[in-house]
């Protein structure tokens, strides 16, 4: 076989490989997405095993936002558990308009807000946090970020919720305000308040930002 023929043959093989197997390659490149979509579909048909898989995939994200918002391990565990129970009950309403993780985040935020409205433990939590000055969420962070995490945890409830959603999780003011049931302007005002309070706290503690 001449060099040119060999090159053409190789090109043909490469072309055939790409065109024939590209769908499979896409699937292999996103195995998590395929698994998640499959689990959602099966969980929507009341398959508890599939829902457990979804729980395993997303528990760290859901618990993370619950812990950041409540600043309390026991509350965060209750909220995360409640969020998954609510998600199970509302699964038939999930139509994939947003990512499943985003949908779960919304439910988790609602769970946190609902629990805080129901109980008066928030005040106790702030007192406890002030007394101990240790943020349970900060164990997940390293170095100077622990100081920031502690400072975020000491913020007043409204400012903390907005700061966590906007600065930590990257939601826009419109998204954060929608999740928290407040006006976008209020969200901006709470962020400004959070920044001012954090700057005061971190300045006192010598945190370099």
């Amino acid at each position, binding site marked *: 076989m001449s060099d040119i023929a060999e090159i053409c043959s190789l090109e043909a093989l490469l072309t055939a490989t790409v065109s024939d197997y590209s769908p499979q390659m896409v699937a292999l490149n996103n195995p998590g997405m395929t698994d998640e979509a499959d689990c959602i579909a099966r969980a929507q048909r009341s398959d508890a095993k599939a829902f457990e898989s979804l729980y395993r995939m997303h528990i760290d994200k859901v618990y*993370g936002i619950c812990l950041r918002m409540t600043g309390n391990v026991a509350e*965060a565990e209750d909220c*995360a558990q409640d969020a998954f129970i609510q998600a199970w*009950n509302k699964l038939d309403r999930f139509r994939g308009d947003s990512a499943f993780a985003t949908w779960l985040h919304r439910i988790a935020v609602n769970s946190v807000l609902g629990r805080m409205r129901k109980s008066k433990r928030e005040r106790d939590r702030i007192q406890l946090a002030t007394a101990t000055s240790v943020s349970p*969420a900060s164990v997940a962070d390293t170095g100077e*970020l622990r100081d920031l995490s502690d400072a*975020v945890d000491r913020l007043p409830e409204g400012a903390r919720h907005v700061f966590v959603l906007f600065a930590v*999780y990257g939601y826009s003011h419109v998204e954060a305000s929608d999740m928290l049931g407040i006006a976008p302007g209020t969200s901006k005002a709470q962020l400004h308040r959070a*920044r001012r309070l954090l700057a005061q706290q971190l300045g006192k503690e010598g945190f370099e930002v």
Partner: protein
Amino acid sequence: MNDINRDDELIAAASTLATEISPEQDLWPGIAAAIARPQGSRWTPMFVQAAAVILLIGASSSLTYLATKDRVQVVEFVPTGLVFEQASFGNHYALGVEYQEAHGDLAAQLDEELARLSPEAREDVELNLAMIRGAISQINEALQKEPDNALLQDLLLRTYHEELALMQRVGGLTQHVMSRKDI
């Protein structure tokens, strides 16, 4: 460092905080136990209330129809205290001005209030409103055939009450209270 840079760096630093944190214990057993129970929790109190209204309306309308369809003339004893209120309905009932104003005010603000709710809550409220409005429509149809039926009039009044009450619960915006004379 100026405040803007400091703020930007604060947000940048915050964005590097851990967003995924593992709970100290596995929460699945509690979730599994909860979802294994029969799902009664999907029925919110509001939904149950609306469903009860529909059931009441359906049952009452059927009973009324069965009780009155073969009657040529109905002679009823009416307590004196109710005469004025019944007269306020008349043969050709119409919604009173106060009710229409209250309803108009609430309806105008309802969309704004709904936009503040979570998608799930909004869906629940809209579903409940649709059910109540469907019931109102059915009672109005029945009343066109029997305009003097006091039971249907009363049901209509109570259903309008339900609609206003639901709208008020969503917004809590109005203090208008509908009276029997408003219809």
